[in-house]
């Protein structure tokens, strides 16, 4: 059965996107971003998602916030509730007020995490089979998971991320439907691998090389998997399972350590039954 979420996304046009600082192993300020190409790739992703049946909401870009384009890290959506991120790096912390303003204006209830923990939103937390899988170590704190659970009511499975190149959970895990998910166990510690092995009945296991080209950082709209690139073995398995692979290159964004998933934030996620009511102003 298809995922119950993933048909409506928040995205931010890359008007001011660039690699202006280095906060993950992929970012190098000397590598120039081709702005025209970035705009072209981002537009291509919007078109691909729409073609797959998704609707897109837009967040106004800000000149002083180059990473605002990676909306996956804005926070956690749970029905009409929005839990904004607590970014680890000061460079991104100023994004939060922009995110809060947008969600509040759209009628979401904003519930904030305590100030002394870090959690980077949907980048480090994805729902699957009734639980919220959440990563920790590089960006989010393990201690934040108890607060996330308390605010959203969702049971959390904490997974320790083990490779700094795969610094967010959404670089290692991509739910496909109610039983299947793309997984990159190389990105997890031994305990995390056991937890995920017990959670995912039918995993599509990525080799480390495929994980490093962000295969898991894909967007799933019903039976369409939108990816930057698809290694043949991965594509064959997805097609055998009945998925259609839609390639949407986002190479300019890989320079900042993000792919398709990082550029989107699903707005139709309901972690608990009682918050499934839709906010009125978002259609």
């Amino acid at each position, binding site marked *: 059965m298809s995922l119950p979420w993933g048909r409506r996304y928040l995205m931010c046009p890359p008007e001011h996107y660039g690699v202006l600082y280095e906060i993950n192993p992929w970012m190098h300020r000397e590598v120039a971003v081709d702005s025209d190409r970035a705009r072209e790739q981002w537009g291509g992703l919007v078109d691909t998602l729409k073609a797959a049946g998704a609707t897109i909401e837009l967040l106004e870009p800000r000149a002083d916030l180059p990473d605002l384009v990676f909306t996956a890290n804005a926070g956690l959506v749970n029905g009409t509730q929005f839990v904004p991120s607590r970014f680890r790096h000061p460079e991104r912390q100023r994004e939060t007020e922009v995110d809060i303003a947008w969600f509040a204006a759209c009628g979401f209830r904003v519930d904030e995490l305590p100030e002394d923990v870090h959690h980077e939103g949907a980048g480090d937390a994805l729902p699957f089979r009734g*639980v919220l899988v959440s990563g*920790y*170590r590089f960006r989010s*704190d*393990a*201690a934040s*998971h*108890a607060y996330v*659970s*308390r605010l959203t*009511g*969702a*049971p*959390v*499975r*904490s*997974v*320790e991320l083990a490779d700094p190149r795969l610094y967010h959970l959404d670089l290692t895990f991509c739910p496909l439907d109610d039983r299947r998910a793309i997984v990159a166990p190389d990105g997890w*510690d031994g*305990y*995390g691998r*056991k*937890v995920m092995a017990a959670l995912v009945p039918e995993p599509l296991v990525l080799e480390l090389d495929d994980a490093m080209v962000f295969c898991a950082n894909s967007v799933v709209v019903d039976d369409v998997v939108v990816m930057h690139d698809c290694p043949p073995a991965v594509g064959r398995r997805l097609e055998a399972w009945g998925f259609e692979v839609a390639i949407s290159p986002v190479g300019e964004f890989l320079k900042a350590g993000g792919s398709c998933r990082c550029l989107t934030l699903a707005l139709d996620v309901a972690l608990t039954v009682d918050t499934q009511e839709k906010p009125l102003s978002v259609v």
Partner: protein
Amino acid sequence: MATELVELEGHIVDSLILAKVLDVILDAGADYDIVEFDVGRTNVDASRARIEVLHEDEDRLASLLEELQVHGANRVDSADARLVSCETDGVLPEDFYSTTNLPTQVRIGGHWIDVENPEMDCGLAVLDGGRVRTVPMHQVRRGDQIVVGLDGVRVQPPERPRGSSPFEFMASEVSSEKPKGLLVEEVARRIVDARARGGRVLAVCGPAVIHTGAGPDLARLVRDGIVDVLFAGNGFATHDIESNVLGTSLGVVLSEGRAAVHGHSNHLRVINEVRRRGSIAAAVADGYITGGVMYECVRRRVPFVLGGSLRDDGPLPDVITDVVAAADAMRAHVPGVAVALMLATTLHAIATGNILPAGVETYCVDINQAVVTKLADRGSHQALGLVTDVGLFLRELADRLT
């Protein structure tokens, strides 16, 4: 042993976070004790664990705590103790921390410092150089730094003597229905063990020790170096001397068990003669006292403290009649004491129990079960009681140890 308490909350069971944290602790060469564990009822409910982490090395414990923090285990109660300066001699600050007799630690400058001399019902004074001592109310002086409130103070739970022993199957701390021979043998063994570790043995004696005819047995224990320090009152010392000089204890002829003619004044005459000589030691020196417990104490230079009371006759010149000064004199002899024998005395046993750390193995011997209960009720929970005649007990103990 350095210890810290950490707390872990969330879906720590299903996420294997608890298992990981415990593994990390053991891999670091540390140990743990799960102090509290609330398991969520359903898979939606969060669980919560409080874990005490123990490591022999404080620096390694600190780096282990940093690692545990990565996994969400945060230190609980990391506050330093709050200190307030005394304003008046002999008066503790309001809200002073009132001590137990248990091993206690105080957090100062982020470090847990052992209290040097655990004693119940005292304040905690932080001295220059970061040492911490218990201090009785009357001893505090203006300007002393005293711990107030409960933050930054922790006590370690009491521990029963370990190892297979007849005490282990005592359901209560008081034994009136146990084979006494086994218990006496066990006490003897523990005295030998304590002395082998360099511990001192304290005897706290009531006059019944003399009345029951056990004076010579206790004297034997002092003479053979088994008893290192002795606490008693005017009565015990008086009857010990009376029995040696006149052969009676409170006028009763010890060898025959009958009352001597005009024997009721015997103890007064003995006190009078010791007072004439100025001290028990002087009475020994000039040959007035030629045997007994006090005689052996003087001869072997075993320190003794005789505490006075309202009903004392005389008293003997060695008796300290200022009870606060008497308690301070007793305190001076507590360091190093590993075993305390409370021998047929209620009031001196309780007074001594008040100043002993909980780690001192305490055996209370009395024919009256209530004495042992009373001692435990007043906070000396470490006391194990033998309900038996003190005369028989001491004879058997002396036979095993001398």
